[in-house]
């Protein structure tokens, strides 16, 4: 089964690389969805079906749709390719790429030098176990998360409201 893991991992890495280098926002977003789906497959391989399902539904589904909306609202499709090309010169990306590569090398070094248990046994954790843990031990955290979502909702609503300049001022004054 391992080859399947390496294949999906390779797809994830490749599509992610495409995301960060692509000049068209919509295409980049599609690559991102691909990457997320690949990660969902990896979740499944690690015995986490619930996580895989959520990854597909929420990440690749809901969140990406949200971003698509915004791209459309800001008209960031084909028209901005030229602008992106101007912004993404090699001189701009070499430095960050080097930094990240360095970081990655360090991480690899650290991971490879750490002694790992020989146990390669992975455990299957089904939605039931997750549900039990979530609503028993973590129930308070769930409530907090719901508060967070509510706050995000209200915040997003408030921030995204497009005030007209003439009414905004007078409205505040009254």
């Amino acid at each position, binding site marked *: 089964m391992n080859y399947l*893991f390496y294949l999906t991992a390779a797809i994830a890495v490749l599509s992610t690389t495409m995301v*960060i280098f692509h000049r068209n926002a919509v295409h980049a977003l599609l690559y991102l969805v691909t990457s997320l789906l690949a990660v969902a497959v990896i979740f499944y391989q690690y015995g986490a079906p619930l*996580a895989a399902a959520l990854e597909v539904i929420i*990440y690749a589904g809901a*969140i990406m749709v949200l971003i698509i909306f915004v791209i459309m609202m800001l008209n960031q499709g084909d028209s901005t390719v030229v602008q992106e090309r101007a912004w993404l010169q090699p001189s701009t990306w070499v430095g960050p790429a080097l*930094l990240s590569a360095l970081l990655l090398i360090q991480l690899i070094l650290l991971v490879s030098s750490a002694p790992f248990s020989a146990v390669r046994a992975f*455990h299957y*954790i089904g939605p039931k176990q997750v549900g039990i843990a979530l609503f028993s031990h973590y129930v308070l955290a769930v409530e907090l*998360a719901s508060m967070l*979502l509510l706050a995000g909702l209200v915040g997003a609503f408030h921030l995204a409201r497009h005030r007209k300049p003439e009414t905004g001022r007078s409205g505040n004054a009254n």
Partner: protein
Amino acid sequence: MPIETAPGLEAGILLASTLFCLGLAGLMMRRNVIFMLMCVEICTNAAALMFVVAGAHWGNADGQVMFIFVVTLAAAEVAIALALVLQFYHRKHTVDIDQLNDLRG
């Protein structure tokens, strides 16, 4: 119930690290806010992957619980962030993050 055929822990961590570094690199090199948001998503997703891999290694449901929280967080974050992007675009008529430097010393 152990799964014998699963890839190793190291492989999972390495993949997560790679994804995270890619996301970080993207954050640093892109000037378009939308791309930066996507890169933030990559980073959070890498972190979530780490949780799940670790949970699977220890046979513990906590990893996936944390994954759910990360997803929640990402959802809230992306909502707020996109709202901010909209607001930013309305005010400055650009999506260039470098124009947003009012806090310079």
